[in-house]
């Protein structure tokens, strides 16, 4: 009897100690957002070494910070888009997205002209000989980079947040894969890696950002980051450059001479699900 009590006391003490150590170490660990510059550098070095080992290829991971005085915004010309899906594939290559064929950060929705913008009857799986098809128009939807993002609010571990330049990012090392953010997103813009991403070494884009297109593990959520690895270096997102009809526009909302400001001031602008007050930084407009 006495022996049993002692065992239980020992057991409790032991489990308590283990729990305390676990709790302490998890408190010491931090999100990419919170770590010091030196810590971030060392984590990036670890990541790069990991990729070198896994893919046998040099993958450069940048930690470029938001540019001061910059708030990114995007505008897509619905009167031009023909639904050719060049953007979805350029995005997949640029952002090291799994080649399984299911996961795309951009989904092009085909809608009927007589119904207008109607998500209930939109079709992302249209397979046409030629586009645009008569009586249809096309609405590519990716992350709307909301100024008031529902997805970041529901994350139980705060692994996703809005950066000062407006890009909503995911810390892939902190994400627990609960997919609450996917449920909260009103645009279906977040995607989950159900399996290990299919990515051959020769397909990898080695220019990456720590909060963007660096290769992801299985079991985390990912999404469009306005090509953070490009746009924080002054370049246009990959989808802007590839669009054969020039329907995609990108720039700094705070710069009065930017394309975005011109569009807002001179064109008819539409916001998807405006009534939800998500305040997207992604606008749609009619260029004609």
């Amino acid at each position, binding site marked *: 009897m006495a022996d049993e009590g002692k065992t239980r006391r020992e057991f409790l003490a032991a489990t308590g100690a283990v729990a305390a150590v676990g709790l302490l170490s998890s408190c010491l660990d931090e999100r990419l957002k919170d770590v010091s510059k030196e810590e971030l550098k060392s984590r990036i070095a670890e990541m790069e070494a990991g990729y070198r080992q896994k893919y046998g290829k040099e993958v450069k991971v940048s930690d470029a910070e938001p*540019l001061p005085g*910059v708030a990114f915004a995007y505008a897509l010309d619905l009167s031009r888009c*023909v*639904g*050719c*899906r*060049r953007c*979805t*594939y350029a995005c997949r290559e640029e952002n090291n997205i799994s080649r*399984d*064929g*299911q*996961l*795309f950060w951009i*989904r092009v929705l085909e809608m009927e002209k007589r119904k207008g913008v109607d998500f209930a009857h939109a079709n*992302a*799986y*249209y*397979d*046409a*000989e*030629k*586009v*645009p098809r008569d009586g249809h128009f096309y609405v590519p939807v990716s992350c709307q980079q909301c100024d008031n993002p529902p997805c970041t609010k529901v994350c139980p571990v705060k692994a996703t947040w809005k950066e000062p330049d407006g890009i909503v990012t995911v810390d892939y090392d902190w994400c627990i894969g609960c997919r609450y953010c996917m449920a909260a997103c009103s645009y279906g813009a977040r995607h989950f890696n159900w399996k290990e991403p299919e990515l051959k070494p020769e397909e990898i884009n080695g220019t990456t950002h720590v909060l963007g297109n660096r290769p992801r593990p299985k079991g985390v959520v990912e999404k469009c980051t306005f090509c953070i690895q490009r*746009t924080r270096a*002054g*370049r*246009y997102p990959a989808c*802007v*450059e590839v*669009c*054969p*009809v*020039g329907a995609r*526009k*990108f*720039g*700094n909302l705070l*710069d009065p*001479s*930017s*394309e975005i400001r*011109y*569009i807002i001031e*001179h*064109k008819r602008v539409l916001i998807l699900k405006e009534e939800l007050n998500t305040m997207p930084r992604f606008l749609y407009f009619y*260029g004609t």
Partner: protein
Amino acid sequence: MNGKSLLILGFLLLLCACSRHPESDYEAEPSWKAPPDEQKDLALEVPPPPFSEGIFPCSECHKDLETNPNRRKLEDAHDDIVLTHDEEHRWCLDCHDAQDRDKLHLASGAKISFEESYKLCGQCHGDKYRDWRFGVHGRRTGLWNGKKGYLLCAHCHNPHQPHFKPIKPLPPPVRPEVSHGR
């Protein structure tokens, strides 16, 4: 300073205030401003025009040919060109210059090179031209906060048949229920 000179100074100040143009206070900002590059009247940097192979310079063949200014169906050369661009009202020499075969001309008669063909297009399509100068019509490459790559109208639109032709889309995403069976 005595009282008299103060009086004169006051009078002069009053005169200055009154002589300001009365309307100058009401001049509103124009609702549309020329884009920065147009204000400076800089030529835009564009890639070379998309000539069919071996077609330019036009004078290569035309230097020995007498110009026939009559509108007609072309049979000896350029018979592959089908004009569906306000063809009722126009034909070759409305844009291509008859004297200098390596040039285009504007409605004013001013000759322009093929590199500046956007000026020719802009004569009728003024709204598109303006949007293009601002970077809103057409494809852009380069830097959103710096040097941008422009394309000529003719890089995307065939000037003789400017309407876009339908293109083949890339494959649709794989439906989740399909790949689950794999």
